[in-house]
């Protein structure tokens, strides 16, 4: 079908323009909104887009011509566009809202068909719990039948092999039936519980409404979650602080302001959140819950088309939370040094055959663990925790050594328990087993808990030094880096080859001062340099 493209209005009071040049020629295929000509008016030069797609048939003017607004400037042979437009006149309802960038989440609840009485029944299904997780163990219910729940309220704690998660409901209502008992394993997509929508009659659309409407309404934040406007209260806070309170769901009317004349400050709002979440959940353990809510500053893109968005979830989210918490709570400092490991290298070489016979392979890590345990016995502050709530220091008389493992899913920290009572060969076997299962995502949560100090062996990948983050609630992390050859002059003036390795000790300064860390590192490196000294630590 032919279509005449007319010169559109070019601005207030502009009736004509001069054709500077054509941007297309006859035979070109153009898309809707594609610029076809440059027109200069007495105010500006503008590019004129076509409103339809098609193949350019004829250009009606030449460059230099003055064209009146509403004159036909070119003709197009349309390609299917008009046909598509005319196509769907019979459809009268719209499909359920699609996810097109705004807040529509694919609901994991389904509405049962027999909901004619207004109290619709919803089935809450176990949502996906993370990459590759197909099931989880129900630790405990957070609701019981008869409870009224709001959308987004947590209803159950589910432990997967990676983490323990709280499962929220997507709909509000009254809990009708719990489908599982604590301890049972629940498959993803199984129905966890059923809900009767309490406000069924209020929420329900009026009789004329299309059924799609209720779904549409879940997109915008619902009216249940806002507190009354501040116009009627005496609260003093700047508009941006009030907005922050809304975003954090803190009722600003109930906050005691610490600012001048009782102003509620930005910090007052942020503090509210901290006190709420720290108070109700205990942080900790090596895979533990990073449970402090941190501010979530906005991210505005300057180049959205060249960016890809993926959800921050599962293990990555857990890592982010744990490390954010650790970095927030612990004043870190790192001490670095190098040590001659020529003897250690030789010692390890010498026992290769023995290890092979025992069916394993010995890396440097078990030696480092042994040297670390011996040094910790000398410096108990490195095998301790701070119990913030009790305001006490906890000195641990057991030695569970975590080691950082790089896995496809991100950083995991398996733990060699009671490492002081195990031989180098036992530890080697355990490290190999734990590392493999960490990479395969098969570690049990228990195997990532209870470390008293952690070693990170980033040197196996590269880098001379790093400043690691302590695995809260531990108070130190040891870093080991790659072995490098170095030429040295010995006492006789002969050039000899030596092997050196870098170590770092990163400490919680609340408990460990710099001088103590220096003495610790010296004692530790002494053992690494002369592995035979480890004999002295044997009991």
């Amino acid at each position: 079908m032919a279509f005449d493209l007319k010169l559109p209005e070019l601005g207030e009071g502009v009736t004509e323009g001069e054709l500077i040049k054509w941007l297309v020629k006859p035979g070109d295929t153009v898309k809707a909104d594609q610029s076809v000509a440059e027109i200069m008016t007495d105010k500006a030069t503008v590019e004129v887009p076509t409103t339809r797609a098609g193949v350019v048939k004829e250009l009606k003017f030449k460059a230099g011509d003055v064209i009146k607004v509403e004159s036909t400037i070119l003709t197009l042979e349309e390609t299917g566009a008009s046909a598509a437009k005319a196509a769907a006149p019979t459809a009268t309802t719209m499909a359920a809202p699609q996810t097109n960038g705004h807040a529509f989440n694919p609901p994991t609840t389904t509405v049962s068909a027999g909901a004619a009485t207004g109290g619709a029944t919803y089935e809450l299904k176990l949502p996906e719990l993370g990459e590759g997780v197909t099931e989880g163990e129900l630790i405990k219910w957070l609701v019981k039948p008869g409870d009224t729940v709001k959308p987004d309220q947590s209803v159950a704690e589910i432990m997967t092999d990676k983490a323990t998660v709280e499962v929220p409901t997507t709909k509000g209502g009254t809990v009708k039936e719990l489908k599982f008992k604590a301890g049972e394993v629940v498959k993803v997509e199984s129905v966890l519980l059923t809900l009767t929508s309490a406000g069924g009659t209020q929420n329900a659309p009026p009789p004329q409404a299309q059924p799609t409407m209720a779904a549409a309404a879940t997109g915008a934040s619902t009216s249940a979650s806002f507190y009354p406007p501040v116009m009627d209260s005496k609260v003093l806070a700047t508009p941006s602080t009030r907005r922050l309170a809304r975003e954090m769901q803190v009722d600003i009317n109930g906050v005691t302001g610490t600012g001048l004349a009782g102003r509620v400050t930005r910090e007052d709002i942020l503090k509210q959140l901290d006190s709420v979440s720290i108070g109700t959940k205990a942080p900790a353990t090596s895979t533990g819950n990073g449970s402090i809510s941190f501010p979530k500053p906005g991210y505005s893109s300057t180049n959205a088309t060249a960016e890809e968005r993926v959800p921050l979830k599962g293990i990555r989210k857990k890592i982010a939370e744990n490390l954010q918490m650790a970095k927030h709570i612990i004043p870190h400092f790192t001490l670095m040094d190098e040590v001659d490991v020529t003897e250690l290298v030789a010692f390890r070489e010498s026992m290769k055959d023995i290890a092979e016979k025992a069916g394993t392979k010995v890396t440097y890590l078990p030696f480092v663990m042994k040297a670390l345990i011996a040094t910790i016995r000398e410096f108990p502050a490195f095998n301790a925790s701070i119990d913030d709530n009790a305001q006490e220091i906890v000195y641990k008389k057991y030695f569970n050594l975590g080691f950082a493992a790089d896995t496809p899913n991100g950083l995991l920290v398996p733990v060699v328990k009671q490492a002081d009572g195990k031989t180098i060969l036992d530890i080697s076997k355990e490290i190999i087993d734990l590392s493999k299962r960490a990479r395969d995502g098969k570690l049990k949560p228990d195997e990532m808990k209870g470390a008293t100090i952690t070693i990170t062996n980033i040197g196996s990948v590269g880098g001379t030094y790093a400043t690691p983050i302590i695995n809260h609630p531990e108070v130190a992390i040891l870093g080991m880096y790659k072995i490098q050859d170095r030429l040295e002059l010995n006492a006789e003036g002969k050039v000899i080859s030596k092997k050196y390795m870098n170590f770092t000790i990163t400490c919680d300064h609340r408990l460990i001062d710099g001088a103590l860390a220096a003495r610790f590192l010296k004692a530790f490196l002494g053992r690494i340099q002369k592995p035979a000294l480890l004999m002295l630590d044997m009991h």
Partner: protein
Amino acid sequence: MQKFDVVVVGSGPGGYVAAIKCAQLGLNTAIVEKEKLGGVCLNVGCIPSKAMITAAHWLDKVEHGFPEMGIEVSKPKIDFKKMVAWKQSVCDKMSGGVNQLLKGNKVTIFNGTAEFMSPTLIEVQSSKGKEQLETKYMILALGSRPIQIPGFEFDEKNIVSSTGALDLDAIPKRMVTIGGGYIGLEISSYMKKLGTDVTILEAADSLLAGVADPDCSQVVARKLKKSGVKVIHQAKAKSQKKTGSDYEVTYELNGKTETLKADKILVTVGRRPNGDQPTLKKLGIQIDERGFVKVDAQRRTNVKNIFAIGDLCGQPMLAHKASHEGVMVAEIIKGAPRAFDAKTIPAVVFTDPEIASAGMLESEAIAKGYKNLKIAKFPFGANGRAVSMMETDGFVKMIASENDVLLGVHIVGPEASNLISEAVVAIEMGARLQDLALSIHPHPTLGETMMEAAEATLGHAIHIIQKPLHTPAPQPAATK
């Protein structure tokens, strides 16, 4: 049928702003307008009345200000047709601007009347026929219209609302204004300057009763009287009849029936929301007995995907309130946890001199339980810029709490409408009087009156004498 994320109905300062914000947030948005883009505000309200007021202001200056300043001109001649055409060009520019902004943001514009079919379906009737729009969300911005009273049905030629008054063919000789609210006062003031003999019939004891600070409206009342506008209080308009080329307006005053002659009758007794559009009923939304659509603090109706903003959803019927709601609702649709959280909605009246206010009236502060209020005024007569502008009528009045928190600012005087914004920010920020007093205000400007009014409310402004003359020590900034 076309499908959208959001359809906005009505393109006034609420609707068009909501549509632009929706589009900016990436929502596929349409807007439906049955008349001109920009609604009442841009076409028959705020903007055209300001154009006429400006024209009349300059005419008044030429006649009454110039001789004193030593400028002599012969008596100015008014080409009223040209004046109205200029006013219209102002409106067209603004409306054209809205058109460009909507198009630039890729909002689809439908020129036609919206018929509501269901909460997700709208049918637009236009000269091109019928078109159905399917939408996930609906924002109703239907606005309001002048209230008509029995016996004074608008013909918009001789018995006019604000709409007709702004589009007359000729300057009336004698005009009766029924209703001394802000619209009636604005039109009456400029008509008087253009040469019309104006009488205002007002049912209450004072002008702008309950809306403006009484001290402020008194300044305007005095100036109106001086300029020759007659105001009859406690008067109730009863009927009119045509006598020759004129109208005879009958009204009741103190139980007696009186009459007035006029060639134009302006009825400005208020506005009513357009919540009575017949097909609105099909949406299932609740509408109160005055015609306002019932909404919550998010401006959401009882039907969860439908929002109502602006004049349609409640008082005060002000353009800037509607725009604020428009932006807010767009963000809520996009998922932001917002609600209407402003501390104050400022109001301005373009009388001569202008009145502007933000925050509470004294009576409102007392009603809210504030005790020992601090209140003071600083007159424009003590401000150098005002004197040099020959605009010395009026003052800035401040109301603060016992511990100096700014609660209300009421200005009557030159540029009050532009000065009030500082007060709005101060109130929203929870400012105390000292915050204003300690901020350096540039000299010589009208804005200095804000600083000095704050100082006056604290005890002593520099440029007026206040008793008692001495304060023992500088006002401490102690936290109270």
